[in-house]
């Protein structure tokens, strides 16, 4: 698997890669180069695809605005819909079933407890699509543990959903060697058979190019950082707590809130809030952690801010303001119930939980109000935020799938990617009216059955342009979009923003225990000096060579950052 071995024989389709292959041949196995990408078939291809080469692969974009959003996108935010739901006015975006009735198995991460495999929602969706989708839902928190084994087996499901944060180790290689090239079905004008897929923004498709071929069906997302400090606004208002504007204010507030005797702590692990507070480069994905500073690529872990952020997160644990459950790390119980009980008042999680926590508690706990705190800079000024990627969850089709199966999968995606304001969107996100939700005065309310069955299954396949639409809680939708817009104003893009980069496999195990180290440091089990030692080991064990490799990628492709 040396990068230089694969290339010289086969003529490359991509000119810039061909040139680097020549360079590789000249250097003859010396320094690691971007070369391997020129290989003939689906062998591991490192690097990225951009510019003219990407253009040939990307599907055409045909906008598909069914309903004008109430809040248009700004600063990279999603589009927001807050208006009442007009059931009768829903458009149809898929006039004829595209599915041919085949059977498609989909493995996908699932957060929460999955419904029975044969339920009203799945049946209704399959009926709408015309494909018999069989779900293999796996626990989302430990998905990476299943993924490696499933992909190594000879029995890969027809479709596998892979979030970007699970693409560690050799998974990117597996994506390239195990999944089908969807280019023949989607590149250029071919996508127009699937109007909802054609309306997916191009930057999301750009992210779906793996190993020089269009392999992913993307779920477009806002590039504004997605981790929000969620807090109990009802309790804040009652107790007169002010939302903190700096790390010192946060610490002071946390100490004020905490009263362990009364079973109340301030927060859970705040590591993911400490990073933006100190302006640390994004940790959402390995390539995003690199940025060009004065002509030199710097990794997030080499910056002083990184250690400062960890130190501050550690101080919170040391001060005893963190709920003891946070000590359990990944094995901690679901934060939902204890947040609802008020055992802690602040925790950091994905923006989507703003809405899901609201809806969970709406009935039995009417005073409960969760809200998102603005990210703050450690010194109280404007924060420096780093963009995540415009798509980070992808559905892939098994390489061995027949054309009929691929077409059926695309039929599924064309329904799940339907924009807000269509019947397909409502079915995908809310289920069947009367069974999974009821509508009163234009406000849809999910029934118990709806809450059980309509969870994150079909939405994982492909999505419309980043959309936040909660007609049931319009103020939450507005809050979410406006939060993104305020934070978007502070968001900058690092050097590899927007690219899909596959690292050479010899570097893939470099950062394996980084997150473990972070968690150990934050919980006081390891010292900051241990982390510094780890970082210097990382550099000598390949980090510095990886830097050179990334520099080469950057020189060859240019930066998409603005």
């Amino acid at each position, binding site marked *: 698997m040396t990068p230089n071995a694969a290339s010289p024989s086969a003529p490359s389709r991509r000119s810039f890669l061909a040139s680097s292959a020549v360079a590789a041949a000249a250097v003859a196995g010396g320094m690691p180069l971007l070369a391997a990408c020129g290989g003939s078939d689906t062998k591991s291809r490192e690097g990225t695809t951009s510019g003219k080469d990407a253009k040939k692969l990307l599907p055409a974009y045909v906008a598909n605005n069914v309903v004008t959003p109430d809040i248009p996108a700004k600063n990279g935010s999603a589009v927001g819909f807050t208006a009442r739901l007009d059931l009768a006015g829903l458009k149809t975006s898929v006039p004829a079933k595209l599915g041919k009735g085949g059977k498609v198995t989909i493995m996908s991460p699932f957060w929460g407890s999955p419904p029975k495999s044969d339920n009203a929602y799945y049946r209704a969706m399959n009926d709408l699509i015309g494909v018999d989708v069989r779900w293999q839902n796996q626990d989302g928190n430990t998905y990476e543990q299943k993924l490696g084994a499933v992909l190594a087996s000879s029995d890969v499901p027809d479709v596998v959903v892979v979030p970007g944060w699970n693409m560690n180790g*050799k998974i990117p290689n597996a994506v390239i060697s195990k999944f089908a090239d969807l280019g023949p079905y989607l590149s250029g004008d071919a996508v127009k058979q699937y109007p909802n897929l054609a309306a997916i923004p191009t930057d999301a498709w750009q992210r779906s190019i793996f190993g020089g071929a269009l392999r992913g069906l993307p779920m477009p997302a806002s590039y504004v950082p997605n981790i929000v400090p969620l807090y109990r606004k009802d309790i804040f208002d009652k107790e007169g707590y002010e939302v903190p504007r700096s790390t010192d204010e946060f610490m002071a507030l946390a100490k004020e809130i905490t009263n362990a005797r009364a079973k109340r702590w301030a927060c859970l692990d705040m590591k993911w809030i400490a990073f933006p507070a100190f302006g640390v480069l994004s940790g959402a994905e390995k390539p995003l952690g690199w940025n060009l500073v004065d002509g030199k690529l710097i990794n997030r872990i080499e910056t002083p801010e990184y250690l400062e952020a960890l130190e501050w997160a550690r101080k919170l644990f040391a001060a005893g303001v963190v709920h003891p459950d946070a000590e359990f790390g990944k094995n901690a119980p679901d934060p939902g119930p204890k947040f609802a009980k008020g055992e802690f008042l602040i925790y950091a999680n994905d923006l989507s939980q703003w809405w899901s926590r609201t809806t969970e508690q709406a009935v039995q706990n009417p005073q409960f109000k969760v809200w998102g705190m603005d990210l703050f800079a450690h010194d109280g000024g404007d924060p420096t935020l780093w963009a995540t990627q415009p798509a980070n969850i992808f559905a892939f089709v098994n390489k061995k799938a027949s054309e009929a199966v691929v077409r059926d999968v695309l039929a599924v995606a064309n329904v799940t990617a339907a924009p807000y304001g269509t019947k397909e969107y409502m079915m995908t996100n809310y289920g069947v009216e009367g069974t999974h939700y009821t509508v009163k005065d234009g406000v849809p309310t999910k029934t118990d059955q709806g809450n059980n069955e309509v969870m994150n299954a079909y939405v994982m396949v492909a999505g419309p342009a980043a959309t936040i639409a909660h007609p049931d809680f319009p103020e939450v939708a507005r809050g979410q979009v406006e939060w993104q817009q305020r934070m978007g104003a502070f968001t900058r893009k690092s050097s590899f923003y927007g690219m899909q980069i596959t690292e050479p496999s010899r570097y893939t195990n470099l950062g394996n225990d980084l997150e473990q180290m972070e968690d150990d440091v934050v919980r006081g*089990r390891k010292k900051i000096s241990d982390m510094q030692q780890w970082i210097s080991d990382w550099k000598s064990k390949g980090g510095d060579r990886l830097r050179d490799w990334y520099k080469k990628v950057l020189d060859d492709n240019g930066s998409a950052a603005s």
Partner: protein
Amino acid sequence: MSNSTVPRSRAEADTGSPSPAAPATTTGPATKKTRTRQSLRVRFRRDRLLLLMTLPALVLVLVFNYVPILGNVVAFQDYDPYISDNGVVSILESPFVGLENFRRIFEDSAFWNAVENTLVLFFLQLVLYFPVPILLALLINSVVRPRVRAVAQAVLYLPHFFSWVLVIAVFQQLLGGAGLLSQLLREHGHDGLDIMTDPHTFTFLVTAQTVWKDAGWGIIVFLAALSSVSPDLYEAAAMDGAGRWRRIWHVTLPALRPVIALLLVLRVGDALTVGFEQILLQRDAVGPGAAEVLDTFVWWNGVRNQDFGYAAAAGLVKGVVSIGLVLAANKVAHLMGEQGVYKK
């Protein structure tokens, strides 16, 4: 039995037949050979039904225990299971790297940390866990009323049937930082306890969990051994004026000795396997520094990080050390005059 005769006869035949130097002696081995062959054939015919019946088990052992051993070859490779859709082809196509993985292991402080944790945990469990079932068995054996005895046994067995997930959840609810005990302490003005997430006492926690869950189950073998002790012995000892403790020391424990020795040898063979699921579930709560054992190390590197060759190498090292330990423990058992797992 029959197995041991086959290689011997063949060995004799081998030494006998290629002997150009001594052609005169050929008749001797030849007749011997035919005789063994005949008797083999006769025995085969006689036992063919029995042999046939062992065949499925043999096939199972071969397919699920021996064939997978061949997969260990990935320890010498930079194994990439994703090269091909077929595992065997992947092995054939993955590049060999010689002892590179083993070199990495010996340089990896995380591996040695796992070895250390494993050994510490093993010795702790040997001292604190192993004797508990023996004591419990003695206790139960001394209960006379069958009703009480049945209830006690049922209560002791029960935790064995709980899954580790459940056991750890119960421990967390009771002893966790926000659990019952800590909250009770706080309500009375003390500090909460950090039992579940303290890396320093983690080995004790794990041992306590093991005792709670499995000690009751472990008494079964000892109870069986106890029931085979003839009551005459106790009566005779009592006649001689031996008290309760003397009877235990001179009658009961000697009766248990072979079983104890056997279980000890088996336990030592398992020394490096100290509870995979239990520890994996709690690994993040105390960090790998305290919780990583060899099995979780293999799992973490192989399954989680897809560094399969490296993980296989670590697994191999573990296997080799385990065999060494079994041999050593068996030797000790022989020296003690016990049978151990196999005869000399």
